[in-house]
């Protein structure tokens, strides 16, 4: 195997080991945060798929909510077993996004942004307004947890955050692989084309509207799946979990991390969550989280417009240049 390939393989192995060992070095509450972080990585990564087409939505977090509410209701009202309800919840988010695409894609850019916000708020209003089946402002409680898995010699209880973390991690990694494949495929290329020059794309036969819709639906489906992961972990959902403040957090992760690479938003999410949990919580400043996020957002736009991913890119370039070509001077 060539040197770069070995290095990549080694990095991935190292990452896998870290991800597996990680929860064991944490306190109980930190483990819970780790679960949320894992879920949020899927939220922000699926958001990025939409941004590939150049559209930024403010309704993404509500799509996560549609998945969460959907899966919760399918289990509670219809008695669908949990793993299946999660798939159905995710698909529901995709279908709702598809329906919303008709009014929303009459708009572009800023208008789309505002339109997506309005669409999301309407859905949230419906949740609040209709006690049956959505539970009104208090939402849905006592959602079925993910069922225990009995392997005979060992029983996996998903109430334990470590177990649920492993479960969420597997799902999220699988989703990231799929998102990555889509981006690297001809469909991903077409998304980029639609973003940079929709006129030219359309003139060579690309149905621009259909591709915008496709990106919206895929991103909503994965957001919905993230929502189901959340719902069956915390056991309760309510409209405030998916409000604009949460959306701003997602936006901040994406912008601070950068959206030109697949790892940008993930890094943004990890760093800001760490900052939030370690620095703010320790200092008792949790209430000021929106303010701090706002400041970080402004600072990163001003001083780091290319996002954290740019720093990583530079490190990778440095490694390529110095380590892989062996040009380090052994003076």
């Amino acid at each position, binding site marked *: 195997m060539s040197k770069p390939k070995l290095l990549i393989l080694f990095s991935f192995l190292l990452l896998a080991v870290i991800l597996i060992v990680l929860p064991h070095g944490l306190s109980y509450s930190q483990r819970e945060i780790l679960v949320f972080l894992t879920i949020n990585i899927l939220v922000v990564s699926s958001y990025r798929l939409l941004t590939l087409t150049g559209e930024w939505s403010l309704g993404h977090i509500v799509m996560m909510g549609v998945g969460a509410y959907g899966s919760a209701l399918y289990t509670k009202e219809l008695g669908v077993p949990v793993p299946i309800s999660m798939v159905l919840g995710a698909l529901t988010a995709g279908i709702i996004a598809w329906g919303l695409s008709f009014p929303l894609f009459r708009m572009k850019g800023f208008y789309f942004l505002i339109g997506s916000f309005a669409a999301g708020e309407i859905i949230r209003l419906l949740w609040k307004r209709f006690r049956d089946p959505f539970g009104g402002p208090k939402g849905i409680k006592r959602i079925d947890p993910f069922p225990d898995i009995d392997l005979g010699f060992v029983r996996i209880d998903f109430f334990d955050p470590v177990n649920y973390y492993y479960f969420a991690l597997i799902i999220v990694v699988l989703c990231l692989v799929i998102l990555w*494949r889509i981006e690297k495929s*001809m*469909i991903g*290329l*077409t998304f980029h084309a639609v973003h*940079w020059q929709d006129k*030219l794309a359309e003139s*060579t*036969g690309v149905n621009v509207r259909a591709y915008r819709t496709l990106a919206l639906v895929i991103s909503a489906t994965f957001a919905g799946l993230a929502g189901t992961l959340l719902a069956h972990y915390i056991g309760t959902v309510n409209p405030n979990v998916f409000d604009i403040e949460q959306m701003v957090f997602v936006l901040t992760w994406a912008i601070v991390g950068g959206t030109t690479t697949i790892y940008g938003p993930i890094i943004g999410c990890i760093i800001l969550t760490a900052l939030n949990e370690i620095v703010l919580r320790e200092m008792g400043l949790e209430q000021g989280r929106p303010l701090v996020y706002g400041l970080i957002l402004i600072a990163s736009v001003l001083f780091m417009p290319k996002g954290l991913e740019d720093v990583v890119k530079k490190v990778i370039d440095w490694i390529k240049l110095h380590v892989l070509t062996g040009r380090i001077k052994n003076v």
Partner: protein
Amino acid sequence: MSDILIVSNLGKQFGGIKAVDGLSFAVREGDIHGLIGPNGAGKTTTFNLVSGFYKPTHGSVKLFDEEISGLRMHHVAKKGVIRTFQHSTLFAELTVLDNVLVGTHMMFKPSLTAAFLGRERQSRAKAIGRANEVLEFFGLQAFVDQLAGELSHGHQRALGMAVAMASQPKILLLDEPFTGMNPEETQTMMGLMGKLRDTGITLLLVEHDMTAIMGLCDRITVMNFGKLLTEGKPLEIRNHPDVIEAYLGKQKNAT
């Protein structure tokens, strides 16, 4: 030869301006057909109407016997009518190869399931093959990995045509393909257009470079103020008094 494109009584109004005003002409299959006229005559607007970028105020555009006016741009493209843009319009942030790959979109329609499963290798290899063929034809194979935005102006024009060509048009609408090219590049490009015609592609060409137009075209349509001025073979057009007047104003009697 039959007519591949028939434009009749086509009109487009922007507010008070009649950019195209009752224009009729036909393009014969296999020809290089010139569409010329002074600045603001309505040539680009005509392209926009034929390609579905604008909906006409009135009139009809037919591809052979089929009405195509009012169809959306990607539908018109699927019928085999592909246009380029007057101002270099490219995916500047993508590589030269990726630009042309987007052009192969209709030939190798991407599949979502293939993308999900990572099973795209075959169709992608074919698309890349097609793209490289086209890039080679336009002499761009040396630049495949460069960003389109970093190319020289002449190469950008050529890439615009390559993207269009990659989608296997029946008729190619080229809006001022020679602007920004130096004389040698223009010469080469003229040669390539002759070759394109030989492969059976019909070309409709808007161009201000009269040497190129006169040298290339089988027939020429002249428009002025959105209307048809005259039509004919290059020699007829070159010496037509109305055309000279439209281009040079009233100085035609000066010599």
